[in-house]
């Protein structure tokens, strides 16, 4: 039931993102993140964090977006399971590029690139 609610927030979030409404998407992903955390579901927790990062990026809030994309990396480390990391490294690098911090962007892109060939 709460898992069902969680999935439905993720789905709405994605739809809002697709329809260019990142503010509403943010609200959905935020609700999803809290549910995923209380349910102890790391896979959905990562999806919510990634969604939050993407929503903030679309709003031009790059510093905050980095915070949520980094959360994906932190969850991976905590769980010993690295799905979603390639995308997170790429997204963080995109944000640093937007912020003009090319030095830091390059470091994250290097992590991203080194993972492109693995599955």
């Amino acid at each position: 039931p709460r898992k069902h609610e969680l999935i439905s927030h993720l789905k709405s979030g994605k739809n809002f993102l697709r329809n260019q409404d990142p503010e509403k998407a943010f609200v959905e992903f935020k609700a999803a993140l809290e549910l995923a955390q209380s349910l102890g579901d790391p896979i959905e927790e990562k999806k919510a964090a990634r969604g939050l990062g993407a929503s903030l990026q679309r709003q031009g809030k790059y510093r905050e977006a980095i915070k949520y994309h980094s959360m994906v990396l932190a969850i991976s480390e905590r769980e010993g399971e690295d799905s979603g990391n390639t995308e997170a490294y790429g997204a963080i690098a995109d944000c640093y590029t937007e912020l003009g911090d090319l030095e830091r962007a390059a470091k994250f892109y290097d992590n991203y690139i080194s993972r492109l060939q693995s599955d």
Partner: protein
Amino acid sequence: LETVPTIKKLRAYAERIRVAELEKCLSKMGDDISKKARRAVDDLSRGIVNKLLHGPMQHLRCDGSDSRTLTETLENMHALNRMFSLET
């Protein structure tokens, strides 16, 4: 470091294609698709894009210690900008 914005644009270019093709595929497959199948199809789309981008991306990131020269890296960047119309 001049090549960093090109990496970002090339990623965005490929991601647009990936998402558009994935959505076409999912709509063809209908709603009766299992979670496992959904995941496999998503992995397929990412796998193809990532493996195709690996070479170009790597050749946009080689400075200093690397054997590839800066000139070559910049030539790669210019070619990619042209070929994917990344500067428009």
